[in-house]
């Protein structure tokens, strides 16, 4: 791929704008709360798009196009099963606790609901996860630019890291959130022409369907038999593994996304944030799954037009390169710059989201309670800014470690899965069963993580896992991930209940505003229906069910 002057102009324009946003926001940053939590002043349309954009990192964009090509339309389950329901649940039931408790972070909620050790466990594991994720995004960006544009790996890493650092250092969370919204539009508008032109080239959806195996274009029809669908999963594993444990575990407990809802102006907008965000999330498969399916269709003899997904050293299709290869094939100079900028935006958006979540959790949940208490607000503002720089430097270091060890990404994803998988059980019990105790939550989390590691060690999929004994073979790595998550959730759930039953719970007085049965219910009357939580949530549920039926 060769870039021309127009392409470089668009890339430079984007860099100028993201740094410019940081400069403009800088004047508004007066306190640690402004820098790390945006002082709860951000309007709904921005929090919703930032909520979705924080999740729209490179792994999402490139990964879902790759999955579309590899697994076909069943990839939409990550949206219509694995996201929408959890986002609605978060908005309707969980945001009142996160927002109403006045906690500044998810670990801080755990401190209020349980105790310091549960907060510490969650804060430390989350901080490590986010800063390493940021590094992986940085590595993937530099690697991608090295492969497709032949840019120098080191220079790409340092330029991208410096740009993200500058705009977060100046404008904190608000700057990151504003840029996430710009990145969202860039990704959607930048890739839309690609979808249209590739689909047109393939002869439309009917031609794609006619030229692919039926299990590549039906979302549910073949899920009754695990050997008949590309995921190698029975629909029950899909619904409980992805649709319940993984989905709710991510959307309802991950501070990276919840932070965007916690900065809304008021409770109603905080609750509406994930619900409004569910609208673009529902339509996202058009941008990130459809191109993958069209790409694989274009390689069928009847539709062949010269486009090919590149192969790796072993001669296998390199699905990760599906999106970059589509861009190279269809985008001329000019739009090519937009496509490359959109790719960069997705990497930088993922990185910035992780860094802002990291600096908030480190400052509020690790530094303030464990190292330096009761200092002035200015002190914590400076610490927050320093942590931003440190977080970026650790990300750069992680990117270089990833370069040296090919498997580091797989390893980290695995560890993240072990930590994140069981987390939703802790929140579910903590918010809806007042008898849940701090000891129950802590030991449940630990047991769930151990359960996840053991399950991975005893199962094998695509050559991965089975490091204790490969007792059970699973067809796909994705299927293995669902089963690991499911087991870890069950282990956490029952351990938490058992330990809670033999330990002393907090008094009702201490749990007011933190537990469903002891919290005043949110009144959602007044105003037009489209500004109210329940009607909008019900409408989205209905549309999601209809989409699943249409693509059954």
């Amino acid at each position, binding site marked *: 791929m060769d870039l021309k002057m127009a392409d470089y102009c668009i890339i430079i*324009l984007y860099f100028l704008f993201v740094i410019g946003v940081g400069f*403009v926001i800088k004047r508004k940053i007066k306190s640690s709360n402004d820098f790390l939590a945006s002082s709860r002043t951000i309007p709904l349309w921005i929090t919703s798009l930032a909520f979705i954009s924080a999740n729209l990192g490179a792994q999402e964009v490139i990964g879902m196009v790759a999955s579309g090509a590899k697994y076909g339309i069943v990839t939409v389950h990550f949206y219509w099963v694995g996201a929408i329901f959890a986002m609605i649940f978060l908005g309707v039931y969980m945001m009142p606790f996160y927002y109403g408790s006045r906690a500044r972070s998810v670990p801080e909620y755990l401190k209020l609901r349980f105790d310091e050790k549960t907060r510490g466990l969650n804060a430390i594991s989350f901080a490590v996860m986010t800063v390493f994720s940021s590094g992986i995004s940085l590595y993937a960006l530099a690697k991608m630019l090295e492969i497709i544009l032949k840019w120098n790996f080191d220079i790409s890493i340092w330029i991208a890291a410096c740009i993200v650092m500058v705009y977060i250092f100046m404008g904190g969370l608000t700057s990151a959130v504003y840029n996430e919204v710009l990145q969202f539009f860039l990704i959607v*508008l930048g890739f839309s*022409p690609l979808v249209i*032109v590739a689909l047109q080239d393939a002869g439309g959806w009917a031609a794609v369907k006619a030229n692919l195996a039926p299990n590549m274009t039906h979302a549910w029809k073949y899920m009754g038999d695990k050997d008949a669908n590309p995921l190698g999963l029975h629909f029950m594993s899909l619904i409980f593994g992805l649709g319940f444990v993984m989905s709710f575990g991510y959307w309802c407990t991950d501070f990276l996304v919840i932070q965007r809802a916690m900065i809304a102006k008021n409770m109603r907008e905080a609750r509406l944030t994930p619900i409004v965000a569910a609208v673009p999330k529902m339509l996202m498969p058009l941008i990130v799954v459809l191109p993958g399916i069209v790409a694989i269709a274009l390689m069928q003899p009847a539709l062949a037009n010269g486009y090919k997904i590149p192969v790796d050293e072993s001669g296998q299709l390199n699905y990760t390169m599906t999106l970059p290869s589509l861009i190279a094939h269809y985008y*001329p100079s*000019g*739009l090519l710059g937009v496509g490359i900028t959109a790719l960069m935006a997705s990497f930088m958006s993922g990185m910035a989201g992780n860094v802002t979540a990291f600096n908030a959790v480190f400052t509020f949940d690790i530094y303030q309670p464990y190292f330096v208490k009761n200092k002035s607000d200015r002190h914590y503002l400076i610490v927050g800014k320093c942590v931003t720089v440190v977080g970026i430097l650790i990300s750069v270091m992680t990117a270089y470690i990833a370069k040296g060890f090919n498997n580091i990404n797989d390893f980290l994803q695995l560890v993240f899965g072990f930590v994140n998988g069981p987390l939703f059980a802790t929140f579910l019990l903590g918010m809806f069963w007042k008898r849940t105790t701090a000891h129950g939550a802590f030991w449940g989390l630990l047991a769930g993580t151990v359960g996840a590691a053991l399950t991975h060690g005893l199962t094998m999929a695509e050559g991965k896992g089975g490091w204790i004994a490969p007792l059970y073979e699973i067809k796909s790595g994705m299927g293995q991930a669902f089963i690991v998550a499911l087991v870890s959730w069950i282990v956490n759930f029952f351990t938490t209940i058992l330990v809670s039953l033999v330990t002393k719970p907090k008094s009702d007085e201490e749990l007011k505003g933190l537990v469903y049965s002891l919290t005043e219910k949110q009144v959602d009357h007044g105003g037009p229906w489209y500004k109210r939580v329940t009607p909008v949530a019900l409408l989205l549920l209905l549309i999601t069910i209809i989409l699943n039926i249409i693509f059954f």
Partner: protein
Amino acid sequence: MLKKFNQLSFVIGAFFAITAVILFANELLSGMAEKINLYSAAAFLAFGVFMIYLSSKEES
């Protein structure tokens, strides 16, 4: 003018409007007449102008 940059809708609108201008200029100067570039530039321009219009409504 600088105050306008406080409004995110204006920033987004300005970004896409300038991107559209670059795409149009690229077509004019290179003489490629790539339809996909022209259609995309028109769509970006329309979106950019719409966002700038929204920002002026927000302001008033």
